[in-house]
């Protein structure tokens, strides 16, 4: 518990420092002005989301290999947190794009991939919930692995076949070169949101494991209190 409190304190402190850095330390962008500052938040949550999806992929690989329920729950927890991060990315993106590009959305490779990523992990969580029987974690894990493999293929397919029109200028993005004075804000944000995502995954995972333990204990208790079980035991049925 103390470890989580320490990590929580570090994450909150980092988020405050990162917010301060992106609003007050980073210089104003020349053409885009104030709206560019959403970039630090946007890029950091995107990184955190991708990191948690990668954790989800590894956890599911470990699950089909080792078959320990903890990996399944780690997969579910990280997919949920990753989905929250990607949702933030998909909301902050258009908020920035509308004043800068003049449009809310374009079918560019990165945007489309983020959207497909979102859809794939929504289906993963739905499958995990709607599955019947003891096989659900395994088949959901297999689906998560298929989905993760698909993501780079989606990215390349959109990049090679759907971007004939000129690419929107991603001002302030790492591709067009970031002003060195903007780097501290970006890096502190990256660190802050990765810490935050790790913390939430950790909490979600321990809640899931605690629920599982509680269910087990309830089942054990019901079995012990059941008047029939003693009788059956005396008859040698169990």
């Amino acid at each position, binding site marked *: 518990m103390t470890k989580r409190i320490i990590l929580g304190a570090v994450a909150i402190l980092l988020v405050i420092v990162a917010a301060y850095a992106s609003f007050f330390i980073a210089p104003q962008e020349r053409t885009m002005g104030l709206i560019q500052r959403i970039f630090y938040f946007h890029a950091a949550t995107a990184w955190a989301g991708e990191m948690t999806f990668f954790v989800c992929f590894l956890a599911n690989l470990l699950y089909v290999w080792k078959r320990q329920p903890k990996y399944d729950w780690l997969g579910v927890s990280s997919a949920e947190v990753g989905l929250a991060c990607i949702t933030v990315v998909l909301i902050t993106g258009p908020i920035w794009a509308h004043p800068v590009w003049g449009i809310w959305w374009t079918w560019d490779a990165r945007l489309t991939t983020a959207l497909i990523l979102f859809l794939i992990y929504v289906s993963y969580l739905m499958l995990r919930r*709607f*599955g019947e029987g003891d096989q659900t974690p395994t088949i959901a894990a297999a689906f998560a692995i298929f989905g993760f493999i698909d993501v780079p293929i989606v990215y390349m397919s959109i990049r090679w076949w759907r971007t004939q029109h000129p690419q929107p200028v991603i001002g302030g993005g790492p591709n067009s070169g970031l002003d060195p004075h903007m780097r501290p804000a970006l890096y502190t944000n990256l660190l802050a949101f990765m810490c935050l995502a790790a913390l939430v995954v950790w909490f979600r995972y321990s809640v899931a494991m605690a629920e599982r333990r509680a269910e087990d204990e309830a089942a054990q208790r019901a079995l012990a209190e059941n008047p029939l079980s003693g009788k059956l035991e005396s008859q040698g049925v169990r």
Partner: protein
Amino acid sequence: MSLFSNTAVLLSKELRTEFRSRELLTTTVVFILVVLILFSFAISPTTEESREFGPGLLWLAILFAASLMLQPCFLREQTNDTLSSLRLAVSDPFSIFLAKLIANTLFLLLTELIMLPFFAIFYNVPVLPEFHWLLLVLLLGSLGISIAGTALSAISAQARMRELLLPLLLLPLLTPVLVVSATVTVGLFEREPIVKGKGIAFLAVFDVVFLTALWLFGEYLLEE
């Protein structure tokens, strides 16, 4: 090798089951036809527009039809619990997948070939000049749809709301197939040589990647 002989036996079983009733093939052909007609009502394209958008609509119709056609693929085995006997009968469960996905590819390809003349007439597109390339794109695209679809059909058969779940799982995964095959088909109708080779290679890579994934992880989908 036992994998291939098992697959051949299972494939003949799949084909026999289907050609006894021809239920899937008939309904899929009619479904694609209805969708193509409705698309044309919805946008009422000119000749030029239908050459540009027609292939995309065709592939979308194929994708929707496939997500319905693949539904009974594993569900059929549940009614009499024949899946357990299949699993006991073969040494490598991959041969079950292989047989089913080859059968599904053949069914899809057959429905596409039946639909192609209707598509050419309704959408006024020249399908004949580059027919061999078109056939290759149809084959690789259908193979990709079948590989991912057969795997996901095994997944969705074990869940609630399976009729809705399969398209939901399948369609996002198949985005690359839709994007690339539609673009390559447009290129074929407009005689653009550049996209052809690269697109076909890309579809082949998609097929190989997902076939490998199915080979590695397929057995987990059939556990009980």
